[in-house]
C-alpha cells in the first residue's frame, strides 16, 4: 500500500535516502545540487526506486536527467502524485 504523498513525507524519504549514498546529512538542503552532494546517476536511479517502492510514483530516465537539486526531486514526486 503506497504511502500518501505529501511534501513533508517525500522530503523525509529523500533526506533519509541520501546518506545511503554517502551524503553527509548536515549538507542536505532543498537548494543543494546533486552535483555538490556527489550524487550521480546510479544514486539517482536508486533514489527513483526507493521513491517508486514507497509512493508508487515511477520516475523515468528523462525525469532523472532534469532534476538538479534536492528540491527539484521533492517537487517532481509531489507533482506526479497530485
Amino acid at each position: 500500500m503506497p504511502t500518501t504523498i505529501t511534501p513533508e513525507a517525500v522530503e523525509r524519504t529523500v533526506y533519509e535516502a541520501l546518506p545511503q549514498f554517502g551524503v553527509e546529512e548536515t549538507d542536505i538542503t532543498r537548494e543543494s545540487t546533486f552535483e555538490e552532494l556527489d550524487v550521480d546517476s546510479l544514486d539517482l536511479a536508486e533514489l527513483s526506486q526507493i521513491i517508486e517502492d514507497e509512493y508508487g510514483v515511477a520516475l523515468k530516465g528523462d525525469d532523472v536527467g532534469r532534476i538538479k537539486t534536492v528540491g527539484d526531486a521533492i517537487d517532481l514526486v509531489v507533482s506526479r502524485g497530485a
Partner: protein
Amino acid sequence: MARPENATALVTGASKGIGSAIARALAQDGWAVAVNYRKDADGAQRTVEAIEAAGGRAAALAGDVANGAPDELFERAEAELGPVLALVNNAGVRADGLAIQLEDDDWDRVIDTNLTAAFRMTRRAVRPMIRARFGRIVNVASVVGPRANAGQANYAAAKAGLIGMTKTVAAEVARRGVTVNAVAPGFIDTDMTKDLPESAIEAVPARRAGTPEEVGAAVRFLASDAAGYVTGTTLFVDGGMSA
C-alpha cells in the same frame, strides 16, 4: 560482501545442456535455483530433482524470455525460493545460414532470445541487487562473437553484443557490489553441437569438446563470494581455441 541468506539464482534455458549444468553447479554452491525453461518441462523437472536429490532447493519456472515480461519470472522465483541475487542469461537459440541467405525472421529470433531478452532480464535483475548491495549477473556468450564462424552472423552478432553489454552494465553497477561477467564456451558436448563435423575439434588445442559441467564450474566461480572483484570480463571455456 557475502551472499545473503536464501539467495536465489535464476538460470534461463536450464532444462538441459549447459543451462542445466549451470543450475546444478550453483545449487552445489548453496544457491537456491530457479530453473527456467521454455518448452522442455521434463528436462527442467529432471534438473530440479537432481538438485533436490543432492540436498539443494530448486523450482522449475516456465517462461519464454523472448516473449514474456521478466517481472513475472522474477516474482515467481522470489515467492517460491527467495530474493534473486544471481541471474544467468543462458537461454539461446541458433538459426544458421550464410548472411546472404538469412531471413529476417532468422535474424530477429536469434537477436531477440540471445541478446534482447538478456538485456531485459538484466534490467529487471539489477534493481533489487543494487538495493541489496550484492548481485551476480553471468551472461553465457560464446567463442563465436569475438571470433568469426561462417553461417552464424546472427548468433555472432548476438553473442558479441552480449559481451559489449556485459562490460557496460558491469561499469554502471560495480560500486554497489554487483558483478556482471560473461562466460564464452567453445565446443561443448550438447544438443546444440551434435551435428558439427569431427573436423571442428581440430581447431581446439585440447583436441576434445568441453563438457557442460566445465562451463558450470566457471559460472559457479563467477557467482561466488570469492569473485567479488571480477567484473566486466569474459571467461573463455574453450580448450584454448581463442588463445
